[in-house]
């Protein structure tokens, strides 16, 4: 079984670019990834591409060949759709294909165009990740779903909105020097607490923004990387995926994410690491409560303790386990289909010393990426390690 190397990564700026098509966004990310990798386009065996709402935002289906063309790649191409975990699932399949020896080089990534829909339109589009009959038609939005989880968490384990506010403050702080981030501005706890409510207890600053953007990653087999003298010190050493019932009300727990626990258990075992070995993580903080559920699912903090981790400084840049040094979805932005691949890009840069926040994880060898779809009915977890 081949080790899978991250040969190159590319991101567009995440943010407000309503006029840019997803093909243009992905083209830009792929150019950066190819330049970073030193891998010629002709060597690509496949494109695995994540996108969630292209039918709604661009009246476009069948993205695979369109994006291969945009990236200048002549290879079979397939779109992956798992809501906000779309490119996480694409990365996972890319890893397995390279390990199986089917492919040597895969371009994997994703893009999303969202801001052209406006806030109401994007809220409606995001809602299709929930059960249309039993959730959306009752008026449940995505912020509403995470608000239901936040309220259930407070009732079951304690914690308050001010705890969650510290998650937002931390992630904004981390994004200050991330030039690709949507928000490069500091906020304070009071900003979060005084912001207009979206779905109680969550307000505007508990929510990630609506974003346009793309991410691309060139993955190769270890043999290919060595044969071609690539500088690719970071490997994806563990992959895991979990699933759960579609509707939140059908889950065993309203304030936990078992699918993410299943994914992380599998990824840790696959990589041969323990949660205690994890130096830092990029997690799917689409809402502040989501970061809490994520770090508990990853077994980085005990159930019920995640809520106070940011407030206590345990997950800040200089804390014991920095979480979302990129700024996370909250501040970096969340172009849905790009997010999973963008986390791989951020972790790779952090591990190889090429990230503006690498100084906070100097000497780190193990980073984790956690990508979630819907109310975590889908989850992928990847372990990345420095292999040379």
């Amino acid at each position, binding site marked *: 079984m081949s080790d899978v190397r991250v040969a190159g990564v590319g991101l567009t700026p995440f943010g407000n670019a309503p006029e840019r098509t997803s093909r243009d966004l992905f083209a830009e990310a792929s150019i950066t990834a190819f330049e970073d990798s030193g891998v010629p386009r002709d060597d690509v065996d496949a494109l695995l591409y994540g996108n969630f709402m292209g039918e709604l935002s661009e009246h476009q289906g069948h993205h695979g060949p369109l994006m291969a063309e945009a990236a200048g790649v002549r290879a079979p191409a397939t779109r992956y759709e798992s809501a906000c975990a779309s490119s996480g699932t694409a990365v996972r399949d890319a890893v397995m294909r390279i390990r199986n020896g089917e492919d040597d080089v895969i371009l994997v990534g994703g893009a999303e165009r969202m801001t052209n829909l406006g806030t109401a339109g994007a809220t409606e589009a995001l809602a299709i990740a929930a059960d249309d009959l039993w959730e959306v038609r009752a008026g449940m939005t995505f912020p509403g779903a995470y608000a239901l989880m936040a309220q259930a968490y407070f009732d079951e384990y304690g914690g308050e909105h001010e705890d969650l506010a510290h998650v937002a403050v931390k992630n904004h702080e981390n994004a200050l020097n991330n030039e690709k981030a949507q928000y490069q501005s500091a906020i304070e706890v009071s900003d979060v607490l005084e912001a207009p409510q*979206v779905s109680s207890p969550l307000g505007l600053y508990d929510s990630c923004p609506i974003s346009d953007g793309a991410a691309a990653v060139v993955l190769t087999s270890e043999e290919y990387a060595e044969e071609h003298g690539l500088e690719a010190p970071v490997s994806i050493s563990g992959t895991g995926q979990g699933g759960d019932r579609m509707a939140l009300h059908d889950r065993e727990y309203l304030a936990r994410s078992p699918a993410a626990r299943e994914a992380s258990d599998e990824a840790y075992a696959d990589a041969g690491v323990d949660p205690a070995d994890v130096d830092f993580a990029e997690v799917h903080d689409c809402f502040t409560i989501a970061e809490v559920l994520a770090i508990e699912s990853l077994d980085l903090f005990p159930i019920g303790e995640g809520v106070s981790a940011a407030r206590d400084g345990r997950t800040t840049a200089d804390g014991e386990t920095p979480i979302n040094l990129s700024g996370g979805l909250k501040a970096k932005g969340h172009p849905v289909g790009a997010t999973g691949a963008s986390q791989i890009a951020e972790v790779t840069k952090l591990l190889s010393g090429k990230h503006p926040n690498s100084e906070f994880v100097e000497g780190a060898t193990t980073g984790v990426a956690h990508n979630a779809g819907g109310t975590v009915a889908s989850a992928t977890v990847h372990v990345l390690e420095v292999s040379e």
Partner: protein
Amino acid sequence: MSDSETRDAGFDEWLDAAEEDRAYYLACPNDHGSLPPRRVCPDCGATELEDLELPDSGEIQTFTVTHVPTPAFEEDAPYATAIANFGPVRITGQVVGIDPADVETGLEVEIEVTVSETTGERVLGFSPV
């Protein structure tokens, strides 16, 4: 959100029944509860599913008041959405007949099919018992 006249088999029949106070759930031989339309028990794979009467009331387990809705609920906001536990199944619904600010965990509710002020479509709702 479908705006066509075509009904969703299984789901719309359930709303019809709920409007006549005959809400039901699907029970498999292993006592797992689920909601239609469904042919297979999602818990155990059993295919013999029986319609059983839903208990008259449920208890709110978690709730939220939504201020930023989808366009289909634009005129309805702010409104309370809750997950209520009816025993064999939990259900998500809009809480009506009470000030959204007064909704709380533990509140006992019954099914009440209501109508969206925005679209006129039927909405699965809960009202305090």
